């Protein structure tokens, strides 16, 4: 049987040569993403802005205008409607009353249920969330804190494990991934809720995984070919790990694709964010973090200087076996 090879043997793409173009493109996209996030804003779910969210499932696909009419007649403030892939399911969002707590929220749900049932017999509320302003504020804080801690924590790890340049390049690349994801949500106006924070953290985790593999190979090659030019060395490392990069992206995208198509509407935003993150993360591994190492002036000499420091024993266990010259 002939085995599938997505990346042919001895592929040698000059990634580093293209880095200025790539940087320009990256910068442009990042500016776009940040701009979109600021000017368009994120479509925050009730998790983050507080309020009441009702998901109503109708017997027949309803006329949205009719549903909107019912919501407006409730007289509890500005409501908004959103539809998922399923035409029978409509998400209704309402503001929470300032006063009254649980009782008031209950009353609104009951009122809405009555009004909806009168207009659309057989409608059911398949779920509803109410989040008070106080809790939603804490959820935002925790979400932002979690993402920041993850990014910084991972950058520190790669700084200690490798050279400082790796720490910075990883940090920049991951920030890039996070900003891109935010921009995606700003542009598509998909709802940004707690699940998406989990998705962002996962993207951070996956992206770092990807970068570690390449960084690890760069370090290995730096020890192997001490005289090699840094640009050539990074090209070599990225190309050597390219089959793995592509394979893994494909397997993960296959798995997520199944989830996107079949996993139900509740997870759709989550999965979409993750698929985008995989693509962006793979791109930033090759173009942002690896190429940035050159700009930051990483050189094999630098690593040698470090290795000659007194803590040489600590370095030794990471050296791996010497190449025994099997390479032709």
């Amino acid at each position, binding site marked *: 049987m002939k085995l599938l090879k997505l990346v042919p043997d001895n592929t040698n793409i000059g990634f580093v040569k293209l880095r200025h173009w790539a940087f320009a493109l990256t910068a442009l996209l990042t500016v776009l993403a940040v701009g979109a996030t600021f000017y368009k804003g994120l479509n925050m779910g009730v998790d983050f802005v507080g309020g009441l969210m009702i998901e109503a499932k109708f017997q027949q696909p309803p006329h949205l205008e009719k549903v909107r009419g019912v919501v407006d007649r409730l007289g509890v403030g500005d409501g908004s409607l959103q539809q998922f892939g399923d035409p029978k399911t409509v998400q209704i969002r309402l503001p929470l009353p300032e006063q009254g707590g*649980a009782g008031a929220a209950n009353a609104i749900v009951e009122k809405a249920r009555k009004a909806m049932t009168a207009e659309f017999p057989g409608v059911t509320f398949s779920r509803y969330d109410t989040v008070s302003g*106080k809790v939603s504020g804490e959820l935002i804080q925790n979400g932002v804190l979690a993402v920041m801690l993850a990014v910084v924590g*991972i950058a520190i790890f790669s700084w200690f494990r490798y050279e400082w340049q790796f720490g910075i390049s990883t940090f920049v690349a991951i920030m890039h991934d996070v900003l891109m994801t935010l921009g995606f949500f700003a542009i598509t106006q998909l709802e940004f809720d707690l699940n998406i924070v989990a998705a962002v953290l996962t993207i951070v985790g996956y992206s770092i995984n990807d970068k570690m593999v390449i960084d690890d190979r760069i370090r290995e090659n730096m020890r192997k070919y001490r005289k090699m030019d840094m640009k050539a060395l990074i090209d070599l490392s990225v190309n050597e790990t390219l089959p793995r990069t592509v394979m893994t992206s494909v397997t993960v995208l296959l*798995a997520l694709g199944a989830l996107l198509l079949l*996993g139900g509407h509740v997870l759709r935003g989550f999965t979409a964010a993750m698929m985008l993150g995989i693509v962006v993360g793979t791109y930033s591994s090759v173009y942002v973090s690896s190429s940035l190492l050159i700009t930051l002036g990483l050189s094999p000499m630098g690593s040698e200087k470090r290795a000659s420091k007194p803590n040489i024993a600590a370095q030794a266990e990471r050296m791996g076996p010497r190449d025994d010259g099997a390479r032709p």
Partner: protein
Amino acid sequence: MLNFPRWAVAGILLPLLIGIFCAVPSFLPDSVVGHFPKFMQTRVNLGLDLSGGSHLLLEASTQDVAKQRLANMEEQVRTELRRGDTKIAIGDISSRDGKLSFMVRNPSEVDAAVERIRPLTQGAGLTGQRDFNVEVVNSSTITITPTQAGIDNAVKSAMEVATEVIRKRIDEMGTREPTIQQQGGNRIVVQVPGLQNPKALKDLLGQTAKLEFKLVDVNANPAEVAQGRAPVGSEVLPYPGNPAGPPVIAVYRQVMVSGEDLTDAQQGYDQRGNTPIVNIRFNGAGGRKFGQVTSQNVNRPFAIILDGKVLSAPNINEPILGGSAQISGNFTVESANQLAIALRSGKLPVALTVVEERTVGPQLGADSIKAGLTASIIAVVAVAAFMFVSYGRFGMYANLAVAINVLVILGVMGILGATLTLPGIAGFVLTIGTAVDANVLIYERIREERRRGRNVVQSIEHGYKEASRTIFEANVTHAIAGGIMLALGSGPVKGFAIVLLIGIATSVFTAVTFTRWLVSLWVRAKRPTEIHI
């Protein structure tokens, strides 16, 4: 590298078998698992988004606790200074800005007053830390300020009691496996799976259920009462169902009997048999007090007060002896039943408000499970097929490892009693995608080593060795992200992080160690001189 002594094989297979074994109960119906011994009931719990149900986050106002404590202190001070032979006259009592202050009428008695108050302000703890600070200002005014430690202690014990009361109330509702946990300083999380009517639950938790019986002040001027003014010694309370006009009523401040003296409460019907009421029974002391008061006040009305609102104000037609009574007041069967439950489980020491609620209907939950399951199966099949066409025999080893990994994750979750949520299913699917990453790394490395001209065994050995280091480092960073999610995330984020972290740990084992053993079996049996990878 490719030699596995017998103990090593046992070390690989034993944990995997235990993991798989523990995953089995999750696939069996309740009726079967129920017969298992306790330690074998290692099942994955379904989160509310999958089973349907309600998640409520209740918050107690710490200010309420502090206020109530101050009110109690005021009462204690009054009683203490009025007691005994040497009464100390005080005035200008006010509790503002969270502290209590009053003036001692005769300045020469200030020191004596402080002496008598001090024992009241001592904390109960062994450290003897004060709950309140007592100070004399302007030579005749005494202020009593609660200390932070005192407030913290009071909030803590109030929360403990509140959690217990809530547990009792929910148990009385007959719901299945509720989770009730204190969270942070002043919050309680309540999760009730499969609940059909969350409104009833919230109504039940929303009542403090402080029950009091007080005599109605019939001498009060109705016009003044309507304006909220009551004679000295009386107070005006809301009375929504008042048949005689305005929704307020004046009652004497003194409590005749309170809900603390109850031993039982049941929903019932009145003599005519059609109006729902609540039958209550007092303990010995409460029964005597109730009998005494009702004997002395025949033909006068008394008020039944719940959470500061008058439910009804019936006339005492005859002395109520024997220790039982009934509460009437515009009940439906449901609300009477709720009140009975609330009274049986005791009053909440502090009022709770719902600050977050998530309710998922059972239908959506079932749909989500079905969708998640289908997506997982398709994901496994797609990834497995892709691995097979890319790596042939080695791809199948990886696939076997992934299949075992899925079972082991379920088993570990069962052992930990972890909860599977919808994002958790997404975590599963992602784990399936990333678990093969370790194998991809290894196999690509073996391909590389072959291209460099190493022989089969050397390539395999090198491939595993070199890739293992990378895999380890990549997974540590991945675990950092997962750990942060677990620590800081709430709800869905946590559910996702649990699966991710367990998956990281188990996949390193199955994808690296387990497949290495499989490969070594094959290499030793066949002694291949060429590999197809």
